[in-house]
C-alpha cells in the first residue's frame, strides 16, 4: 500500500513506525466554586511561569539543533505566554464560568485557533499551530500527564503524528527518529520547515495516517516524492536502501563543495552565484554555497504598496544583501524591471497589447528619472558596504546605455557634492536579452563593464515565441543552435574588450547547458540557490578543454534535441547529478 502525501523534506527512511496520538488533548471539564476558581487562577499563573521556563530551555535546544532562525519561533511563544489576550483571557474564563484551568484554556485556544485558521494567509494560518503547541504544553503541565516515549524502540523509528508542533520538532532526537509523517501540513508548515532545517526526511498532509498505521508497522518514507510505502516487499526495501545510501553519499559529497571554488579538472575557475528577489533570499543563497548574487531583482521593493519606496528603504535592503556576503563577493543589483506585465498601482501605465515588447524596464526608467535616480542613489550608497555592481535591464541600443550612464553620472556628482561615500570603481553592466543588443555587443562591450545574458527573454525574442503561451512553448528552446550562436557572439565580443560575461536566466543552472556555456567561455553562472551545489559538483568533474570541443561541435548541429542528447552522451556525469 502506498499513501501519498506532500514531500516536505528530502531523503529516505526505512523502519518501524511509532504512532504518537496524544496530540489531541483530552480535556476534563470541572465546575468549581467561586473560591476554588480563584485558587485555580493562582495555579494557572504558576503553570504559565513553569511553561515559560520550559520554552526557554527548548529554545536553547532548538538553537543548537536548528539554528537561530528556527529558535525564534519560541521567542513568540514566550511573548504569547506573557500576553493578556491568551493568559489573561484564560483567567477571565476560569472566573466567569467557574471552571478548571484546563477547560478554560481549551476554550481560549479553540477560539484563537479558529480565528487564525480562518485567515486567508498561510503564514497567519500557521499561528494556529503555535497556539495548539502552547495549549498542549500548558495542559501537560496542568495535568502532570506523561509524554509518550520514543525510547521504547531499539532502532530508529518513523514518527507518525497528527502534526509536529515546533516544540515536538525541537525535542526530536535525530538518532531515534529516522523520518516523520503527519496528517496535516503543507510545504510551508512549521513541521516541514523544521524537518528541512534538521535534515530529517518527512512527508506531511497524509490526512489520516495516524489511523491507518499501528506501532511497529514497517514503512518506507520517501521525502523526495511524498510517498509512504506501508509493509514494503523485500525488493522495495532493498531498492530504497540503495537510494538512501546514494542520497547520503551525494549529500556528503555536495557538502564538501560548499565553500570550494568552482574549478574544472583542468584548473579553469568560474563563478557560481545566485538569483534572488528579496534580501532574505540572500541568506538562503549563502547557505547553499553561492559565491555572490548574480541577479538581485529589485521589483519586490516596488510591488504590493501604495507609493514608491524611499531611498532609505532601498538602501537598507541593498546594504543587507551586500553585508550578507561580505566585501569579496559580487552583488549584481538590477535596476527596476517593471512595466508591461508587471504593474505598479501608483505608476499609472496604460494597458499594452504586447507588454513584453512594450514600455518597461530601462525604457521606463529613462523617462521616470526621479524614480530611477532614487534607486541609483540607494545602490551607490550601498556600494560602500560590499562589492555591489549595477546592471541595467532590457538594453537594446547603445544610446540607452549612454543615457542611463549619464543619469548615473549626475547622481554620482550629487553624492560627491554631499560628501556621501560610495565605491567610485563600481562596475556598471547590462543585461543582454534582446537580439539587437547581441548583434552590437562588440560596440556595447566598449562602454559596459560586464554583460549578463538573460536567457528567458533572449530565447523568447529570438524565437518570437511568447513564453507564457502554452501553444508555442515547444519553441522555448534555450539549446537551439540559434540561441547558442547568439550566446557565443556575446561572449566573444565581451572577451575581446576584456569584459566578463555572466548569465542569469534559468539556462545557467541547467546541468546539460552548463558544459556548453563553459565551453563557450561564460565567466559567471547565476541560478536559483538550490542549483548551485550540483552545478559546482559538475564543474569540478569536467574539463574546460572537453567542454570547448563539445561546444564547438554542438553549435554546428541543427536541432535543440540533438544538441541536448550530444551533451548528455559526452558527459555521463550529468546523468548522475540530474
Amino acid at each position: 500500500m502506498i499513501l501519498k502525501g506532500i514531500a516536505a523534506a528530502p531523503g529516505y527512511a526505512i523502519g518501524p513506525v511509532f504512532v504518537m496520538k496524544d496530540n489531541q488533548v483530552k480535556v476534563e471539564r470541572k465546575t468549581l466554586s467561586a473560591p476554588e476558581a480563584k485558587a485555580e487562577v493562582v495555579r494557572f499563573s504558576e503553570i504559565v511561569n513553569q511553561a515559560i521556563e520550559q520554552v526557554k530551555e527548548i529554545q536553547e535546544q532548538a538553537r543548537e539543533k536548528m539554528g537561530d532562525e528556527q529558535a525564534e519561533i519560541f521567542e513568540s511563544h514566550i511573548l504569547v505566554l506573557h500576553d493578556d489576550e491568551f493568559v489573561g483571557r484564560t483567567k477571565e474564563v476560569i472566573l466567569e464560568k467557574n471552571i478548571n484551568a484546563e477547560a478554560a484554556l481549551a476554550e481560549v485556544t479553540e477560539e484563537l485557533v479558529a480565528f487564525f485558521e480562518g485567515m486567508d494567509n498561510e503564514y497567519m494560518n500557521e499561528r494556529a499551530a503555535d497556539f495548539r503547541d502552547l495549549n498542549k504544553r500548558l495542559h501537560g503541565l496542568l495535568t502532570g500527564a506523561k509524554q509518550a516515549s520514543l525510547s521504547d524502540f531499539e532502532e530508529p523509528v518513523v514518527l507518525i503524528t497528527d502534526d509536529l508542533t515546533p516544540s515536538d520538532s525541537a525535542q526530536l532526537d535525530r538518532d531515534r527518529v529516522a523520518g516523520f509523517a503527519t496528517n496535516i501540513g503543507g510545504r510551508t508548515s512549521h513541521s516541514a520547515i523544521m524537518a528541512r532545517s534538521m535534515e530529517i526526511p518527512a512527508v506531511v498532509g497524509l490526512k489520516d495516517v495516524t489511523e491507518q498505521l499501528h506501532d511497529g508497522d514497517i514503512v518506507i518514507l520517501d521525502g523526495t516524492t511524498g510517498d509512504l510505502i506501508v509493509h514494503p516487499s523485500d525488493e522495495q526495501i532493498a531498492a530504497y536502501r540503495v537510494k538512501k545510501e546514494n542520497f547520503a553519499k551525494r549529500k556528503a559529497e555536495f557538502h564538501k563543495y560548499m565553500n570550494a571554488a568552482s574549478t574544472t579538472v583542468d584548473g579553469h575557475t568560474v563563478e557560481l552565484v545566485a538569483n534572488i528577489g528579496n534580501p532574505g533570499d540572500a541568506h538562503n543563497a549563502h547557505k547553499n554555497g553561492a559565491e555572490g548574487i548574480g541577479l538581485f531583482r529589485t521589483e519586490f521593493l516596488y510591488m504590493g504598496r501604495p507609493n514608491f519606496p524611499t531611498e532609505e528603504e532601498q538602501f537598507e535592503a541593498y546594504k543587507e544583501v551586500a553585508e550578507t556576503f561580505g566585501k569579496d563577493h559580487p552583488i549584481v543589483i538590477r535596476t527596476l524591471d517593471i512595466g508591461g506585465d508587471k504593474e505598479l498601482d501608483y505608476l499609472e501605465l496604460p494597458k499594452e497589447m504586447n507588454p513584453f515588447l512594450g514600455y518597461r524596464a530601462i525604457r521606463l526608467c529613462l523617462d521616470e528619472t526621479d524614480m530611477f535616480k532614487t534607486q541609483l542613489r540607494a545602490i551607490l550608497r550601498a556600494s560602500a558596504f560590499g562589492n555591489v555592481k549595477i546592471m541595467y535591464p532590457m538594453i537594446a541600443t547603445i544610446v540607452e546605455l549612454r543615457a542611463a550612464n549619464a543619469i548615473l553620472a549626475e547622481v554620482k556628482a550629487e553624492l560627491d557634492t554631499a560628501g556621501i561615500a560610495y565605491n567610485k570603481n563600481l562596475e556598471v553592466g547590462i543585461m543582454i536579452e534582446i537580439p539587437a543588443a547581441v548583434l552590437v555587443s562588440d560596440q556595447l562591450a566598449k562602454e559596459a563593464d560586464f554583460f549578463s545574458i538573460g536567457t528567458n527573454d533572449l530565447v523568447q525574442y529570438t524565437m518570437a515565441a511568447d513564453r507564457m503561451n502554452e501553444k508555442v512553448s515547444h519553441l522555448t528552446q534555450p539549446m537551439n543552435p540559434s540561441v547558442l550562436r547568439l550566446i557565443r557572439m556575446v561572449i566573444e565580443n565581451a572577451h575581446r574588450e576584456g569584459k566578463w560575461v555572466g548569465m542569469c536566466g534559468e539556462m545557467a543552472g541547467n546541468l546539460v547547458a552548463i558544459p556548453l556555456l563553459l565551453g563557450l567561455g561564460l565567466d559567471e553562472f547565476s541560478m536559483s540557490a538550490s542549483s548551485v551545489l550540483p552545478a559546482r559538483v559538475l564543474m569540478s568533474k569536467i574539463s574546460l578543454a572537453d567542454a570547448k570541443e563539445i561546444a564547438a561541435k554542438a553549435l554546428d548541429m541543427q536541432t535543440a534535441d540533438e544538441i541536448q542528447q550530444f551533451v548528455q552522451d559526452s558527459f555521463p556525469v550529468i546523468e548522475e547529478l540530474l
Partner: protein
Amino acid sequence: MQQTFTIKNPTGVHARPAGAILKKASTFACKVELEKADGTRVSAKGMVGILKLGLKQGDQVTVITEGDGEAEALQAVGEVIESIFE
C-alpha cells in the same frame, strides 16, 4: 499622535515581525495602539492582538500613541512596522 504606515515585509506581520513590534512598543511608557483600515484596534504591547490584525504586505496600519514619549514611540514603532524581516 498618530501616523499611518505600510507593511513591507513580503510575508506580512507573522510571529517574528509581531514580536519585534511588541518589543519596541514595550520600551515606551505611553499607550501604543495599532489600528487597521477596517477599524480594528489593538494594543501594540500584546502579541495575540498584533497577530490577530493579520497584516499583510501592502496593508496600511495606523499607529496611535498617547502619553510619555509619544512622538518617539510613534516613530520607533513605525520604523519596525515598515521593516523587512525575511
